[in-house]
């Protein structure tokens, strides 16, 4: 199973509602995947065996599995290593909150593993088809970027995340906010940006830099800008392989502004540490001209 996709897959399939997923991500942030979940994801143990072996004890799996002759000690060690690098927090959180048992979890993990395509791209396509039909021409570009952005977010900020249509909580966006955007120009014109409450912005900066950052100051702006710059760079490299020649411009930062652009799509990104808005456009107005509160 590609565990990075799991939360988004469950939302797209309607197994969990968006609101429920947001709460689940917060739970996932607090939990550590147990070895049983890792073993299930890796196909080392069947869901039915797990259900029979350990209905409740999250931490007893390794001892029980070895004692019952299900796994060798060396296999347990390998699973321990896999645990530190995977994104299975969502799966563990589903068990923790009692939303699923091992049988159901195993079924959905298998379904997610056999899925073709990307749930992030699927989500963007659905949002465009349902609410932003005029962006049909940009669909491919926006879906590709969102896929890369979400994977980078999980990789660099160590959090499960989902993308949904934009309806950020009022308390998240009404007060102090920060916007970072960067334009890519050349064969196509494209701007990506993100817009977050200062609280979420600081957390993003801290997670990306591994530095202690407690204010939405110049250093925080620098860290989030550099994150966006790295993601956009990877996107430009991907497009370069498809013969698109694009240049990156320097990232721009704004305080208490809303990004505005033409052909704009706003997506809500929920993570374990809060939500922010991802903004994609073909062009942007200058931040100084954008709407200020």
């Amino acid at each position: 199973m590609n565990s990075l996709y799991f939360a988004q897959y469950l939302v797209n399939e309607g197994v969990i509602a968006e609101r429920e997923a947001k709460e689940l991500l917060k739970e996932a942030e607090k939990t550590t995947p147990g070895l049983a979940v890792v073993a299930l994801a890796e196909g080392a143990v069947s869901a039915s065996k797990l259900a029979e072996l350990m209905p409740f004890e999250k931490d007893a799996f390794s001892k029980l599995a070895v004692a019952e002759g299900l796994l060798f000690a060396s296999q347990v060690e390998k699973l321990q290593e896999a645990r530190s690098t995977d994104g299975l927090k969502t799966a563990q959180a589903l068990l923790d909150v009692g939303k699923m048992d091992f049988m159901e979890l195993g079924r959905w993990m298998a379904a997610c593993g056999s899925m073709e395509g990307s749930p992030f791209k699927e989500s963007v396509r659905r949002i465009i088809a349902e609410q932003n039909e005029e962006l049909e021409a940009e669909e491919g570009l926006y879906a590709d970027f969102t896929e890369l952005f979400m994977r980078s977010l999980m990789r660099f900020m160590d959090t499960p995340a989902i993308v949904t249509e934009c309806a950020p909580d009022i308390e998240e966006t009404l007060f102090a906010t920060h916007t970072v955007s960067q334009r890519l120009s050349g064969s196509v014109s494209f701007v990506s940006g993100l817009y977050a409450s200062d609280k979420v912005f600081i957390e993003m900066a801290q997670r990306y830099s591994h530095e202690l950052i407690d204010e939405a100051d110049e250093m925080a702006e620098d860290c989030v800008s550099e994150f966006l710059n790295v993601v956009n760079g990877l996107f430009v490299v991907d497009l370069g392989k498809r013969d698109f020649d694009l240049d990156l411009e320097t990232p721009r930062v704004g305080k208490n502004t809303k990004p505005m652009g033409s052909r704009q799509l706003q997506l809500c990104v929920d993570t374990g540490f809060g939500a922010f808005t991802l903004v994609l456009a073909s062009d942007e107005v200058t931040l100084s001209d954008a709407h200020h509160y």
Partner: protein
Amino acid sequence: MEDNNEMENMQEKSGLDDRPLRILITDDSKLLRKKLRLELEKFGCEVLEAQNGKDAVMLTLQEKPDGVFLDIVMPEVGGIEALRVMKEVSPELPVIMLSSAGTPQKLMETLKLGALDFIQKPYTSAQIAKAIESIRKKAVGDE
């Protein structure tokens, strides 16, 4: 442990009249400069910093570094223009491009202008170690 040995070997091998390699980092990101400085200092390098291409060219002329890490996307003067000027005034200066904009076109352009290598962000410690080793070799060869 392996890293420590690698570092000691590099320091022993530097052979530049026993002085450390002097490396100029050019990037508009404070975070990048901070992280890369720590990385380079682990290898015993003396580090200079510039925030844009214009300052980098000035420092290259004044401080004569042994090597440069150069970003491309920067305010005022970008990395490509800075590389062009650096190579005009110091053709032998080893310049490692360290940028997010690693398209095939940019790679070709910077290598044609004389860059020694191109590292796509985000970099790894191993890539930096390799770059330092190639700067060191060039510096020793040129002395």
